[in-house]
């Protein structure tokens, strides 16, 4: 088991070259592992046939044409809100339980073009609305750390399935989505690296939207290096997504970085109520480590941080109300069995197709968008969002600002399922997303790096944030931190 949770892309390719492993045998191992870990419920669907076909193609490129691609023979998993041609894409919702797209999301087609082998589609909160991967029609995903059939921890979410798939060794990398922290949060709780790239760096074409103006495909892997390799494959402009950054993407290289020229800010507003002692301690510990490496550390301020959760909540609900209006039972997806009138058909389909969380966000969003409320809520929220963005702009300003920010990713280690599930979805998110969603608000890149284990032997992680398109510096500093802390492999 433990080799599978320790491998990196480089190591696997090395093993392929030395024929210690072959793509087909390795994919086979990964599929076996996936089956063994069925209890964790990381997958909505295991794509065994696809994985085998893909691995045979990889094998040919490795040994026959001898022109292997960067991800040949590498098992990957996709969160089940990315469209995959001829493979069901459910968003963990009754609404799309029978939906089989006829096209590939750009992220997936780029991964495939680089030789990656799809192991399966990963569990999530319905339509990615959550931070625990507990609200799925397929049941909750379980955290592999300290897993016990009776007493287990949540994986975090909403990309919990992707994080668990990586942490438990089913795959080397997985794609999640990140709207308010949905990639970084489960990465942090499951002890893997989770990257939320700059908004517009990675195409959203084929990602079933939650909040279009904040959604970004996220990357989960066990090392910063693997995350970087995957980012280099998927990033760059896409004609199918008008919001992608038009400038061609320059692949990122990792090197041994000299931290003496790097200024790192510690935003005081992130030291918030409810943050566990252990989290505060590792935050200080890593700050000290960086300072010892000659990085320049300073305390900075992002005064509008506390407004972020409310702003996020309103914008989220407005866009949800709008985005979900296409699910009417006419073109695809669930259609309720009623034919008295079109209105009845809509009402019943949407009642049966969406869970309570989705329905309540639709209701609230439509309320905020009413003509009489538009200025009072929506416009005001946009203004606050601008202020939050300005906070970041100021703190990252070229003259006198910092290069990166160091914060916790979550306020604590992974909560027990029973405790978490007892809370309302809104409170779960408000608590879990506190440190992560300002980055979505501002469209800036952020990465969660596992640091150490808590007293309960659960992962504790920190987050780096940087100005737009600062992925290169951010990933290099993340790699430095990774090497300084030496986070343990899941046994």
């Amino acid at each position: 088991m433990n080799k599978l949770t320790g491998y990196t892309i480089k190591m696997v390719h090395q093993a392929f070259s030395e024929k210690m492993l072959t793509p087909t045998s390795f994919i086979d191992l990964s599929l076996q592992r996936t089956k063994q870990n069925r209890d964790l419920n990381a997958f909505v669907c295991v794509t065994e046939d696809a994985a085998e076909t893909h691995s045979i193609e990889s094998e040919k490129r490795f040994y026959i044409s001898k022109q292997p691609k960067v991800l040949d023979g590498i098992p990957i998993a996709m969160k089940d809100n990315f469209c995959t041609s001829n493979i069901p894409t459910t968003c963990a919702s009754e609404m799309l339980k029978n939906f089989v797209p006829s096209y590939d999301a750009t992220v997936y087609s780029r991964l495939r073009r680089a030789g990656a082998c799809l192991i399966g589609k990963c569990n999530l909160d319905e339509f990615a609305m959550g931070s625990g991967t507990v609200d799925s029609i397929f049941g909750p995903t379980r955290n592999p750390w300290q897993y016990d059939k009776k007493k287990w921890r949540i994986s975090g979410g909403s990309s919990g399935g992707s994080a668990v798939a990586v942490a438990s060794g089913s795959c080397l990398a997985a794609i999640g989505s990140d709207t308010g922290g949905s990639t970084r949060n489960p990465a942090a709780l499951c002890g893997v690296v989770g990257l939320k790239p700059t908004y517009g760096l990675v195409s959203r074409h084929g990602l079933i939207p939650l909040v279009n103006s904040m959604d970004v495909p996220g990357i989960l892997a066990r090392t910063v290096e693997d995350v970087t390799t995957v980012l280099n494959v998927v990033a760059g402009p896409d004609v199918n997504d008008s919001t992608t950054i038009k400038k061609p993407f320059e692949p990122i290289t990792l090197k041994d970085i000299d931290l003496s020229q790097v200024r790192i800010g510690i935003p005081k507003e992130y030291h918030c109520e409810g943050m566990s002692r252990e989290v505060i301690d590792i935050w200080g510990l890593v700050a000290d480590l960086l300072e010892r490496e000659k990085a320049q550390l300073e305390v900075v301020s992002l005064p509008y941080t506390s407004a972020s959760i409310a702003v996020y909540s309103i914008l989220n609900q407005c866009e949800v109300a709008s985005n979900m209006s296409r699910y009417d039972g006419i073109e695809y997806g669930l259609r309720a069995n009623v034919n008295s009138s079109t209105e009845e058909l809509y009402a019943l389909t949407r009642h049966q197709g969406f869970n309570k969380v989705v329905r309540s966000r639709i209701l609230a969003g439509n309320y905020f968008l009413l003509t009489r409320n538009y200025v009072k809520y929506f416009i005001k929220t946009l203004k606050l969002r601008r202020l939050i963005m300005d906070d970041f702009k100021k703190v990252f300003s070229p003259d006198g600002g910092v290069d990166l920010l160091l914060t916790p990713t979550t306020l604590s280690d992974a909560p027990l399922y029973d405790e978490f599930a007892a809370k309302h979805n809104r409170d779960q998110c408000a608590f879990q997303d506190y440190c992560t969603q300002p980055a979505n608000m501002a469209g800036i890149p952020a990465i969660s790096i596992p640091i150490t284990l808590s007293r309960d032997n659960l992962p504790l992680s920190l987050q780096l944030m940087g100005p737009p398109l600062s992925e290169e510096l951010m990933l290099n500093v993340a790699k430095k931190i990774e090497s300084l802390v030496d986070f343990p492999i899941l046994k």
Partner: protein
Amino acid sequence: MKFTKICRRLSYEHKSLVARGFSTVSDKWQSVVGLEVHAQLNTESKLFSGAQNTFGGVVNNCVSLFDAAVPGTLPVLNRKCVELGIMTALALSCKVNEVSTFDRKHYFYADLPTGYQITQQRNPLANDGVINFQVFTPGIHKKPYRKSSKIKQIQLEQDSGKSLHDAELKRSLIDLNRAGAPLIELVFEPDLEDGEEAAALVKELVLIVQRLGACTGRMEEGALRVDANVSIRRPGDPLSTRTEIKNIGSVRGVAGAIRHEIERQKTILDNGGHIINETRAWDATARVTIPMRDKEVVQDYRYMPEPNLPPLRVNLKTDIEHRDVLSVPLIQEKIPELPEQSRKKLIEDFGLRPETSIQLVNEPTLLDYFQNLTSDKTRNPTKVANFLINDLMTVLNKKKLSADDCPLTVKQLKELTDMLLSKDINLEICRNVLDELIVISDDDVSPLDVVEEKGWKLKSNEDELTKLCIEVLENNPKLVKQYKNGKTKVFKALLGILSKSNNKVDMSVASKIMEGLLKK
């Protein structure tokens, strides 16, 4: 709020008093009409997808994943649509906005797959334009008059699909071929007074978009659809409650629907009733407007900025273009001569009467013929124009053909008009030849051949004509006697008898001979 309530009550009481007291109140109403026009842009593909934009395709065959609202698909703006929208805006003297944005307009309808329409509600493509046009409906107006209507805004937006309701099987079927087709919506100020003005505006708009190649203008295909807002008030009063007539599908329909709606509102107010704000439809067969059942509830469209489309930027100042930014000055250069300029030229350069110029410009095919017929040699422009408007159109109308369907070549028309103008044939023969040519529909047949083959050439030989005249005089001794007694009016009757008996007579020559004979 209170103040307006009081005013309303006062005006209501005033109206009912007036209604009770006077029977001729109807004459004192003033009608106010404003239009909203949707024009489908004539592009290869749709506004935000690569699907084919065509009329009459196989059902549900011009539909991309995006058009069917398949989850995860995103809109990509079609540059050609922006260009045609801007061109139309410039032709209507609008101010093109450097930055415009897209909004989502939400409502549930089975043929609206996303549950919202992407439009430009808040920051449209262009604002503040004007359309100038001539109002002239033969039979209604004696003389044309000039009118103009202000344009509030022009916006780009998506069309919806089509619902087909099967009342017997109680089933609805959806065709998404039209879903996502590019439209521009033109919102006019309420500055028209009646249906004829509205119809004239629509006709002018059709001509303009056709000249630009922005839209086919084929109202029968739904390529241009008109909504009319109609209200009536006392002169000097503020605008009162209006009704909206949706989706009128022809120029004459616009005139008819608005006329009917004004009359309907007058009758209601004259009888002491009041108008409710509602959406109505024009029943072209019954020639009445009827309330639309499914639009009773006032909708809140919950507009929201479209997050998947960055703001649309254009270059207003220079000729520099790149992939995402069009140059407005470059588009301005591509604008062809517009109908208003054409009419002006016809009046100033060819000496045509204003009504003739309107009729010619209203039929692009006729105008084209006219330009050809007057360009290679000097033909009397007024006679050519009258020939086209009266004679050619009469023959086409009889055959239930529109001007656009006219099969005649310019060469054929040139020969024919030359024969007519040089009096080788008369008007009646000319119409017969037109008729014959249309039946044959062969570009290679010359009118001269037809005339000769049928023996229709005019008799202008003096001896022959003298013979015919003598025959007429001999057969009508009474008339001759009357003439000789000084009743010279009968001369015309004698000529009439001559032309009736023989339609190939050159009457101008014949009349001289006849006069000579009588005076002998």
